[in-house]
Each structure stands twice: as structure tokens, then as C-alpha cells.
């Protein structure tokens, strides 16, 4: 069989052709401002940050090149960094486990057939999305207040006074208190993504499963969950990235305390850079976080196969 291969067009060929040349120039001109600002505000700081990880810099004196010393210091001498990595691991694992209530809730809601009920739950799920994240955190801070907070007051009211705790002030409780936040851990954005995924599945699959008499549990494991693996992967990568690099929750709620029990590398990086003016060490942490996040995301992409893969 004779096959013909379309010859590759060189960039210079475009400029040889009058109309194409103008169109290309137009295209480049439109892209230019975005590309310029992208390079200036995204790429330059990123590369500068990578470079800074190999320097000792306090923010104003001349940076001193120290090679990989910042990384050696972090892993060999920095007690707080190692502690923060341990805390990060708990947050990442906790975050992954707490993805499942959302999946289960999505499947249960997908099974609701009543259109009015569907409308109601969609509205109910969308309302929390308009409440700023910070407001939610401050509400939880109030809930956990040991003297005035709802949680301790409620426990006292129902006669469980002995269970009252210093939720955010006890080094042994604080990290679990932060993980408990958001109970019952149904994330509205993720629910909408999962339901969207389930609705995209051909309805004949559900009809066949009903004809075959597949039970609700088997239906979840054999059909529903496998069919939304693509969406799960998307949310999984988001959860991993948030768990590894995020620190808003810890900064607002506990500032990494008490006794560093909720300190995570992202927050430590922020504190080193903006409180202690140790920009080189902070940049080194950012590189470590990037590497960890990349590795975990790659593993999840590699080993979780969705129907699209």
C-alpha cells in the first residue's frame, strides 16, 4: 500500500504566504500581552523561586550561593520542617479518606428520581458555595472556642461535660479538630462534578443494571464508582495538591500551633519567608512541596485508570 505523508510546514513557510503571514502576525499580536504578563508574573517568579532555593538570602542583602545546603539543612537539621512534613502526611491522608463521603453523597443524590427533590438538593448544595471560605473557618473557630464555643456548650447541655476539650489549644487534639472541620465532609463543588459525571453516562447502563437486579451496594462498586473514576482522579489531584501545598486552614485556625502540632510545610515556608526573612530556606521548601505534589499526582494518574484511559 502506498502511503503519502503530508509534508511538515515550516514556520518560515507561513511568512512566505501573504494571507497566512498577516493572520499569524495578528495571532501573535493578540497573544503577546497575555504571554508578556504570564512570563512576568507567573514564569519569572517561578524560575526565580527555583533559583533562590540555592541561595542564602534575607530579602535585601546580596544573595549568597550555597548550593544544596538549604535542602541539607531542611532534612538534616530542621526539626520543625520534619514535624511539618509529618503533619502534612496526616492532612493528605485525612483529605483522601474524607473524599469518600462526598462520593457516597453524590451517588445517593444521583439516585433521587423526583425532579422537585433534585431541584431542592441542587439549590441546597449551591448555597454554601456563596459563603466565603474564610467565613466558614471563623465559624468553626467559634464552634471550637473552649469557653464560649458551641461544641463544648452542646456537650455540657447533653450531659457529656467530661468530653469537653480544648479543641484547638491541645497539641494532641488540634490536628484532628482541623480534620473534623467541614463535617459531614460533603464538598459542594465536588458533588456537582460527580453528579455531572454520572449524568453523562448512557441511561441504558442503569436500565440494564435494574433489569439484572443489581443491588445498591454492588451497583456502587461495579458501576457508579468506576464510571466516575475520571472525575475522582480530577478531585484526587486537587485534594493531593491542596493537602501538600495548602496552608490557609492552618494559618487562620491555629497558625500552626499549639506546639507546632498543626504546622504544615506551606505555612512554615510562609513564616520563614515573611516573618524570618529566610527566603532561601522558604524557596527550598517550595521546591520540595512541588516535587512531592508532582510525585503523588503522577502516581495517582499512573495507577488509577478511568474509562477514558
Amino acid at each position: 500500500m502506498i502511503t503519502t505523508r503530508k509534508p511538515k510546514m515550516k514556520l518560515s513557510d507561513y511568512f512566505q504566504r501573504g494571507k497566512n503571514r498577516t493572520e499569524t502576525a495578528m495571532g501573535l499580536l493578540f497573544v503577546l500581552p497575555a504571554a508578556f504578563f504570564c512570563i512576568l508574573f507567573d514564569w519569572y517568579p517561578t524560575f526565580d523561586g527555583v533559583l533562590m532555593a540555592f541561595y542564602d538570602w534575607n530579602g535585601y542583602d546580596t544573595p549568597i550561593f550555597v548550593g544544596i545546603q538549604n535542602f541539607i539543612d531542611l532534612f538534616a537539621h530542621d526539626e520543625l520542617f520534619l514535624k511539618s512534613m509529618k503533619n502534612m502526611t496526616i492532612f493528605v491522608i485525612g483529605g483522601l479518606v474524607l473524599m469518600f463521603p462526598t462520593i457516597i453523597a453524590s451517588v445517593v443524590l444521583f439516585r433521587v428520581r423526583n425532579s422537585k427533590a433534585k431541584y431542592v438538593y441542587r439549590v441546597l448544595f449551591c448555597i454554601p458555595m456563596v459563603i466565603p471560605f474564610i467565613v466558614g473557618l471563623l465559624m468553626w473557630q467559634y464552634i471550637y472556642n473552649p469557653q464560649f464555643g458551641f461544641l463544648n456548650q452542646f456537650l455540657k447541655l447533653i450531659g457529656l461535660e467530661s468530653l469537653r476539650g480544648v479543641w484547638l489549644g491541645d497539641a494532641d487534639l488540634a490536628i484532628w479538630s482541623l480534620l473534623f472541620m467541614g463535617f459531614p465532609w460533603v464538598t459542594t463543588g465536588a458533588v456537582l462534578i460527580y453528579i455531572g459525571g454520572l449524568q453523562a453516562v448512557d441511561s441504558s447502563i442503569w436500565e440494564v443494571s435494574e433489569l439484572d437486579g443489581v443491588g445498591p451496594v454492588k451497583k456502587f462498586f461495579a458501576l457508579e464508582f468506576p464510571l466516575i473514576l475520571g472525575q475522582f482522579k480530577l478531585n484526587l489531584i486537587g485534594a493531593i495538591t491542596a493537602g501538600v501545598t495548602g496552608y490557609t486552614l492552618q494559618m487562620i485556625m491555629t497558625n500552626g500551633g499549639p506546639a507546632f502540632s498543626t504546622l504544615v510545610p506551606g505555612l512554615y515556608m510562609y513564616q520563614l519567608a515573611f516573618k524570618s526573612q529566610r527566603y532561601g530556606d522558604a524557596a527550598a521548601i517550595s521546591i520540595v512541596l512541588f516535587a512531592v505534589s508532582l510525585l503523588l499526582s503522577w502516581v495517582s494518574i499512573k495507577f488509577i485508570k478511568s474509562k477514558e484511559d
Partner: protein
Amino acid sequence: MTTKKAVSLLAVVMMFIVAVLSACSNNESGSNNKTDQTAANQQESANTPANTEDAAAPAEEQPKFKDMTIRIMTWQFGEESSFGKGYRAIADDYMKVHPEIKVEFVEQPLDGYIDKLNANLELDSDTAIDIAQLQPWMIDQIKNMDKLVDLGPLMEKKSAYAGEATWYDTFIGEKNAFTSAKASNKFGAVLFVPSDTNPNYYVAQPIVYNKDYFQQAGITSDPKTWTWSDFIANAKLVQEWGKKNVDSDFTAMASDSEHYGWALSMIGGQFGADLFDDQFAKVDFGAEGQGLDPNAAYVQGDSLLWSKISYAITHGWLDYKGDMQKYYDDMMRLYSEVHGLYQAGFEQQSSAESSQLFYTGRVAMMQAHIGSKKDIETNTEGMFEFDVFLPPLLTKENTQFATGKFPKADGQYKDGFGVNKKKAGNDPDRLAAVADFLQFFTSKDEQNKYVEIANSFSPTKDVKNPEELMGWVFPLEADKTSNEIYGHMIIEWAGGTWPGYVQEYVQGKKTVQQLIEATAKDAKKNVVDWYSAEPDAIQAQIAAKEESLKAAQDDALKQALDNDIKTLKIAKVLYAEAVKAGK
């Protein structure tokens, strides 16, 4: 639309965007269109005393300034604080004297203040601030960045509102009260005009207490006479009473994350420094010291206090070993006694949350500071009576290291209002107006009014401080105060990590030894980082002062300069040694 037209339109839009962005980056009234070269020249000239000397001409010679707005950043306007009212009153008076100048205050809460400050100090636009209120730690962060105007040359000149006196002379302690401020930065510059302070008063963080609760708990003695042991015993008494009669969660005191170091300061501030001084006297200053006597007054005096501490930290004198073990064991034992009086979870609570506990009667005492007096009065009005007492005195009964004295003020200014070099420092007209405003601000007449409105202290000479505030400062009697090195120095010098280490100790996750080792390690790193660039800067200061000494005519000035040079030489040796030991 043809392609050609589209390209032309896009080019016009791009040019417009570029023009707008350029204007935003330097919108100095649009009329002051300086070239880069001019700006560079002005930057250079702002670094020299000559520039600021021009601006210091008294108001009689320059009665009018150009029309302009002076913008002042402060954190003192939250809920119209008494300080804010005082500042506004001075500004209103100034605008009557100088109607061509508008004074605007830019309110910025302390949370995030340093970030906004740093951003503003990079700008010279109309919206950038001219003056910023600064706390000591803020000055510490930016002192060597060349972002603030050196006000020293202006201070040497006559104040426009003090007759023939120089601006320096209008302040309590005069020029000598700025020695530490000048020595602390590598330019030898005065980076702020003091405000709301008296350098001779050691302002305490006293304890405010609910008089009704004390009475009901059967406490009859006057807390103002209490020793440490009395304080702990009575605090336990009122705590027990409160648990039975008020609430099972009742505690003696309220504290919070912002005042975490208060108790450590209170304890450490009363610890003697004998162990430290004995070792310091043995330091060999070698050739660099050029024959300076380590026992001379300028070495033993206060001006090298922080240099001595940094030297001690880097040389391991203050590690947990030898005699220091008992020192730190006692300190943390005493700290634990106070800690047992606080509400549960105080480490993670804000100042506002802990104050609520006091106002709502869930605690009998709380730590306070001088700025909170008005708030306490407002929030307890009609509910209960309160009074205040100074932190109690440690005695030998509590620890062998107790001096039996309160901390003594060091007579030095540490904070106040700084001037944005990029904006005011580069514009002689603006700098003149800003300096004039600050001279007006610190004038005797205005400060007399200010202390009444703000209920604050004044750095200006002959201003009568409010009587009611005297209970909030340590007494001045020489036999009751001492200027000892703080015992908690390593812990505090660990920078931002020390509260966490102390929390670990308090929650049983670190021993005293582990606490001291962790903080000493961080403190050493900080000291080396801070001072690694200092020796060259100090050498430059020594050279400048030696030049001044050659030209000096006045004997007193010669003496002062000679003393400064000796102090700087010692500091140079200490910094270099500290860096060497740190590495």
C-alpha cells in the same frame, strides 16, 4: 473590519494600556515629570545630610509650603482609639497653621501592617504614605533596607516650634536618647521620631483585676504590695472561689496568643545577669579592640546591651549547661506557676477573646497594656470595679537569681514615626513639609494636649504625663530598679519559633533542656544572619565619626564622639566575633 484596521486598533489599545500602566507607576501629580537621571540624582542627594539640612529650615523662614497632602499610616484608628483621636487633634491644629497642607491618616490594622508598610515604602505616588508609625520590631525588619529617611541631620537643626532649641533638645534625654537607635542600623541613622513614650519609664504590662471578685474571695491585702509568692497564693485563692461560686471553668487570669511572652518577660526581667557579666568581663578584645579596656564604662554600660547578648548567644554562654541549668530551670518553674492560672486553650485565643473572659466575669484578672485602659473602662462600666497592679516582685524565696528589683528603662527611644525615603526623601519640598509637621507634632504645646486626649506618655520635654498612668510603669527610684540582662533572652531571640517551643514545654512535649537547646539553636542562627553584614557598616560609621571628631570644636561634642567611636569599636569586635562563632 479589515486586517490592517484590526492591527492598527490593537496597536492603539496596546499603547493606551502601556500609557495607563506607566502613569500608575509614577503619578506624582502628573506635573513633576522627572527624568531618570534627575530621580537618580535626587536619590543620591537624599542619602546625604546636606539634603535633609536644607529641609530643616525653620518655619519662620519658610512659612508656606507647596499645596500637598501628607499621608500618615497608623494602626491607632481602630474603633476610634484615644491615640487616634489625639493624632487627629494635632493634625487639625496643624492644618489651621498650614492650610496649604492636608494631613490624611491611613488606617491599617496591625495584622498585615508590615506588608502594607513594605509595599508603601517602595512607592512615591500620591497615594503612597509619607509617614508611617512603626513598632520596634518593624524598624528592626527594615532598618538596613535604606527605605526610611535619616532624620538625624534634621534633629541637629532648630525645631520650627521650639524657639532656639534644636529638635534633638526638645526630647527627653536629648541626643543621647537616640544612641541605640543610631547604633542599631548600618547607616548610623535616626529612622523615627519618637511618640507615645518616655524613655525613662519602663512601661509594664500590669495585671488588671476585678475588685468585686477579690473582695468576695476574701482577699484583703493590697495587690500593689504583693511579692511573687503572695500573687500566686492569692490567685489560687480567687480561682478556687470562682470555680465554686461563678463557673466550673473559672480561672484566675486570662491570657492570649498575643501576650504569650508577657509572663516570661515579667520573670526574666527580674533575673540577675551575674553569670553573664562574669563571662563578659573575660572577653579578649585583641587587636581589633585597639587596647580598649573591657571594664571601662562604655563596655559595662547599657549601650552595648544587645551586642553583648548576641555575643553570648553565639559563644554558647547561654546554652543549657553548667550554672545556666539552674537558671533556666527556675525560670520555667516560675513560668509554669503562672501558666496554671490561665484559661484553657489561651495559646490559640486572640486578645479580644481573652478580654471577653474578663469583661464577662469568667476570670478575675487579665494582663493588660497601657493602650487598653480606655477599653477596659468602657467594657466594665456599671458591671464591676477594676484596679491595676504591677507584676509582683520575685524574691530570693522564689529563686536565687532574683534581683529584688524591677526592670529599669534604658533611657533610649525605640519606636515612633518614620518617613518614606522614596517619596518624601526624594522631594526636598515634601521633606521640608513632613519634617515641619513632625516638629509640630512633637512640640510641647501639642503634646500637652495630646497626652490628655490620648491618655499616653510623651517624649517631649516638660510635658506633664497623666497621673493616672503612673501606676502602669515601674517606679523610678534607683534602688528599686536595675538594668539587668533579661533572663529569657535565648528564648526570645529564637525569633518566631519561641512561642511554639514554649507551648511544647508547657504541654509536656519538651523538657527545659530541650526547650533551651531548640531556642538557642534558632537564636544563634538569627544572630549570625542579623549581624553578618554589620562589621563593614560599623567601620564606615567609625570613619565618619573620626572625621567629625577632627572638625569638632566643642568639648562636650568631642567627648560624645570619642565615646561613640569607642562603643562602635567594641561593637565591631563583638559582631565579628559573633559571626565567627556562629559559623
